[in-house]
């Protein structure tokens, strides 16, 4: 089926691009390798948990940084968690911003923290969009009767 082959090609190209642009790293590949017929939705499930966690943490970060007197330890704790989960799914760019974010927390630099919050929100939105596109492509392939190329 020509359509399926085209879609598969598209998926491979898209995935390669995401890796090249640093949105995803090898950890994402590791997760894909843990998926099989017995657990066909594993990656989507883990990434969904990541989305939930991240949205919660980003909200908490906005609140914590909005206070009159900022509790930097609390900020650091949230960033640490975000760094951890982004690392676990291979969301490299989000992870990188978190590293910079933690440095600003250590220095108790409010402006730096606020900049990082904005940056991490952007990076999160980007990777979320990319991953959703990736999953949609996979769904299209499956719907057309094809299988996901690895």
């Amino acid at each position, binding site marked *: 089926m020509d359509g399926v082959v085209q879609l598969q090609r598209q998926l491979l190209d898209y995935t390669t691009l995401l890796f090249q642009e640093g949105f995803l790293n090898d950890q994402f590949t590791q997760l894909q390798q843990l998926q099989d017929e017995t657990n066909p939705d594993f990656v989507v499930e883990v990434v969904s948990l990541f989305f939930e966690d991240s949205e919660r943490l980003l909200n908490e970060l906005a609140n914590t940084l909005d206070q009159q007197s900022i509790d930097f330890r609390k900020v650091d704790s949230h960033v640490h*968690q975000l760094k*951890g989960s982004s690392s676990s*799914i291979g969301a490299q760019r989000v992870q990188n911003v978190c590293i910079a974010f933690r440095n600003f927390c250590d220095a108790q630099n409010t402006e730096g923290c606020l900049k990082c919050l904005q940056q991490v929100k952007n990076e999160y939105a980007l990777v979320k969009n990319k991953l959703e596109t990736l999953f949609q492509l996979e769904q299209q392939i499956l719907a057309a009767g094809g299988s996901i190329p690895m």
Partner: protein
Amino acid sequence: MFSSIAHNLHYKSLPLHSFPPPLYKYWKQIPRTFLVMGSAAGEFLRHVLPEKVGVSDHSAAGSEELHVLAVDDSHVDRKVIERLLKISSCKVTAVESGTRALQFLGLDGEENSVGFDGLKVNLIMTDYSMPGMTGYELLKKIKESKAFRKIPVVIMSSENILTRIDRCLEEGAEEFIVKPVKLADVRRLRDFIMRGEEEGEENRKKGNHKRKLQDDYSISPPLSPAPSLDCEISSLLLPSSSSSSPECPSKRPRLWVED
């Protein structure tokens, strides 16, 4: 062999008070074969059966799956570690905190490392940074406990801090794994624990005195092979040495490559 013992043991006809209390507590929960294999039943059977029948105290042996208790406050990480372990043919119980982990192990001073579902825990993998009780504190509690200190504990952390690693190893952690945990890490651990379980079986068959000798060694648990400890130390001291030899599968070389 065990199923035939189970058939011969007419446990229903025995008065309950003849069993030691811990067994009675789990009476309704343990299926028949577990009853035979539970440690208290093992005690009972040693009185009833001839000495030459070797009865295992523990339900996990080389042919059975390892049971791993995973502790992590991150939902994402729990899901991943659970999958890594299941794909490596391990049974998993994943909990979100040190407190829950201790609850699962049964803090009420049971003599054997049996969790609520009656399965022995063969390995504990815990995250280091958790709110409330850290992985380090959990490690200490486990090693302080007479019932559970023999269970190997592995610490996982996203942070590669030398002092932290040393503290954990000194407190008796089997290994310190830098996150994200990979399939290769889990497989290596599983093989290591399985070998330990098999050696444990051997020791039990030979007699208990060998075990007691090993208990007296407070530093390394019997499961730690000496060569790997030397490897780890040497790779710490010699940063210029190239990637570890086949006997050194640990994470130590990465320390020197970190950004």
